[in-house]
């Protein structure tokens, strides 16, 4: 720490007070670390017994060390490094989610701008949105008959509802004031769309996208278990079938971390595009 001229003039008490926020932020950082430590310790303790069906953290690490250190391993068929497994899953998500976002935003704006269509379609969307992702899989397989596009369709159909609903609400929630300004100035339609409607609805759209990406990630893991091929979902299923419980645990950690990163990524883009300050 550098001591400035002002700093030297401060009494020790003042310095302590000034340093306090630092201590607090340190505490904030330390707390989750301690919690994870305690969690790992408990886990280790609970799995110490020889009858334990699940491995402890130490055992997980030692058994999967090969996978951890070499994520970029290239094998044949589904025998790939974890990076490639996750990349394959992400690719599907990217495709399905992008489609869902594009279609969802357009549909959302259309129904948000028209009260009649909204009231007609909203109940339908509310029902469809509650259908669990996996329930879509059989019907999509039956319709498409190919596993890869079927999986992408499941992502699409899972992610689209929150995008549509939030976008529609966003359009409806455009403050009357902004609409009045647009009406008084008689803004042209494209100008209204880009200068008023889109910026005003963006925060809502990104809320929808954030929920959508979370659901997509949930859906892909489950879908891949059923359709097979390279992907983190099938990797878990495969590990289960080969009774490699440690690998399942490792894969779960990765699934969790990637899900978190996806959520943060969309949130970050949202903040870049649509600053929340008003």
């Amino acid at each position, binding site marked *: 720490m550098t001591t400035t001229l002002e700093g030297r003039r401060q009494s020790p008490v003042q310095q302590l007070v000034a340093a306090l926020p630092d201590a607090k932020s340190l505490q904030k950082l330390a707390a989750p670390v301690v919690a994870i430590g305690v969690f790992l310790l408990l886990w280790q303790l609970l799995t110490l017994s020889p009858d334990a069906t699940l491995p402890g953290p130490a055992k997980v690490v030692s058994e999967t060390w090969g996978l951890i250190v070499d994520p970029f391993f290239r094998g044949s068929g589904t025998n790939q490094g974890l990076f490639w497994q996750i990349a394959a899953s992400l690719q599907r998500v990217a495709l399905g989610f992008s489609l869902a976002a594009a279609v969802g935003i357009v549909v959302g704006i259309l129904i948000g701008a028209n009260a009649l269509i909204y009231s007609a379609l909203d109940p339908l969307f509310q029902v469809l949105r509650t259908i669990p992702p996996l329930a879509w899989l059989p019907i999509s397989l039956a319709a498409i008959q190919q596993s890869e596009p079927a999986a992408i369709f499941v992502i699409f159909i899972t992610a689209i509802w929150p995008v549509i609903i939030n976008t529609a609400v966003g359009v409806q929630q455009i*403050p009357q*004031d*902004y609409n*009045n*300004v647009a*009406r*008084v*100035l*008689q*803004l*042209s339609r494209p*100008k209204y769309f880009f*200068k*008023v409607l889109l*910026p005003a609805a963006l925060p809502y759209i990104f809320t929808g996208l954030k929920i959508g990406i979370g659901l997509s990630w949930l859906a892909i893991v489950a879908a891949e278990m059923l359709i097979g091929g390279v992907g983190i979902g099938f990797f878990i299923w495969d590990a289960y079938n080969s009774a490699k419980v440690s690998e399942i645990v490792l894969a779960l950690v990765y699934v969790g971390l990637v899900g978190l990163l996806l959520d943060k990524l969309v949130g970050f883009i949202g903040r870049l595009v*649509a*600053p929340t*300050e*008003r």
Partner: protein
Amino acid sequence: MSVFLEVEQIDKVFSLPGGGNYIALKGVELTVRQGEFVSLIGHSGCGKSTLLNIVAGLDRPSTGRVALAGRPVLGPGPDRMVVFQNYSLLPWLTVRENIALAVDEVYTDKSKKEREEIVRSHIQLVGLTPAADKKPAQLSGGMKQRVAIARALSIRPELLLLDEPFGALDALTRGNLQEQLMRICEETGATCMMVTHDVDEALLLSDRIVMLTNGPQSRIGQILEVPFERPRTRLEVVNHPNYYSLRSEMLYFLGQQKRIKQLRSRQKGPIARHGLEKVNLEVGYLPLTACAPLVVAKEKGFFNRHGLEEVTLVREPSWRAVVDGVAGGYIDAAQMPAGMPLWFTLGGHEDKPLPVVTSLTLSRNGNAVTLGKKFLDLGVFSQADLKAYLQRTARDRHTFGLVHPASMHNLLLRHWLATGGIHPDRDVDLTTLPPAQMIANLKVGNIDGFCIGEPWNIRAAAEGIGFTVATDLEIWPGHPGKVLGVREDWAQTYPNTHLALIKALIQACLYCAEEANAEEIRGLLCRDEYLGADPAYVQLGEGESNTCALGKDRLQYAHHLFAGAGVNRPSRTEQLWILTQMARWGDVPFPRNWVEVIERVCRVQAFSTASRELGLEVDYRRGPIRLADGTPFDADDPLGYLKALEIKSDVYIAEVPLPASLAAR
């Protein structure tokens, strides 16, 4: 200047979610001239913003039409730009971009460079050049509102609409912005319509102030012309001699709207009991010593004794409030100045003849003329002294306060001045003020004197602000002061109630006239809910009988008369004298059908019946009126009397058609 904006018979009806309708505006009619600044003022929910939105085209009227420069308004457009209450800047655009959005949309024929120049100059106009590239979130409320004003002005709207533009700002910022807006409007000659609830803001900025009544069915209650010269400064406006009377006019209007709302919410249908058509009465009065009979009737149970079990005494701030209450039907009956029933009947209120009848005189005397302290120092003790003083200072403005054109004070003061050779309309100014504001106005020198009922003369003397120069004894001893007045249709709908009211008040008057009760009545009157005055200022028929210790000759106090021979009986001769005086000063025409008018107003029959039922002797003797100056008044030849008067306004004679009475229909 020609009519620019026309608002014709606008109604606005909102349908309520639970079914049914809410009529927000009813029959609103308004025209605005080019370059005029008009304010809309009223309580929350009076529909002033709705009216503004209709003019803006953001809202459609249910019926009626709005036209700007002859073109009907069918929807919003940049020719009627709005400055919204909450600025309504787009938060994702900078100051420059927000203004450019408007400019680019409107000036499509101008080059990019010209448009940029317009934006730049308007940012400069509101002094925001340093903040031009900031987003609204980085600006204070005042700055945001300046951006909104710049945006509105940048497109040179034909009509600038402002919806409570400064409502959300702190006082200092508001003051600055008001002056900036005023300067900009004067420079650009913009026609403006502003919604506000700030009376001072309205007075500062407006050429006319449109006051809306409370909803539902809001309409324009009154339009106030603001005569201040432009360009204005705040200081000049505030110090203008008319500023406070205009301000109190607005406050009166707004206060009255609130009171009407209260009275409306309290108003129930008539409750009939004991053979009376209505026992729940609202009786209006002014806090004066002369209101004693009403207070006594209420407090000593005379109302109850005659079956009127739910009488509420409504204390009014001014006679004008009594007039509005009676005309609007919010009060059943009222203590009125003796001339008010005639004044109503002859169309004094809004030129609409409204027959009002009186069957009881509640008090006589109790009035005096007070002059300010400076006249005492100058030795002005008579009309002759005053006339000499007025001639000496002919270039100054001399103002006397009176409470209502129909009050005896007006007529007595005018008569007193005229007797001394002073023309009350040419030699001095007479201004109407509520009684409670007289002393304050005399103190600060807004008026030179006043004629008013007690306790205000005694109080002015006791506080050393003025002195009594004449009392009733010097003008017309024993003149009718206050009477009981009710609308004719009311008296015909509730005849038994009217009779019971007269009986209760006759007994109360008798009670007031007893010397032994004086102390008790004084205590009742001085309570906070009535006069709220110092008992020392309330003189009843006892004790100290001089008006004030100031002055050359200590004048004898003109004690209130509440009962006695011929005191309570309404007198046609007296009403006729009042009629001649009103005509003398041009307040009303002298009605060719004066016999009918007097008969209609002065209902001796009801008084006689009430007295007989109370077992009282009625004194029917009709003496001639004796005024202190000795002028005879011949009740058979009022026109001859009027002709003989030297000092008078233009007297005109006309047939006054009275509305048909209920009984005749």
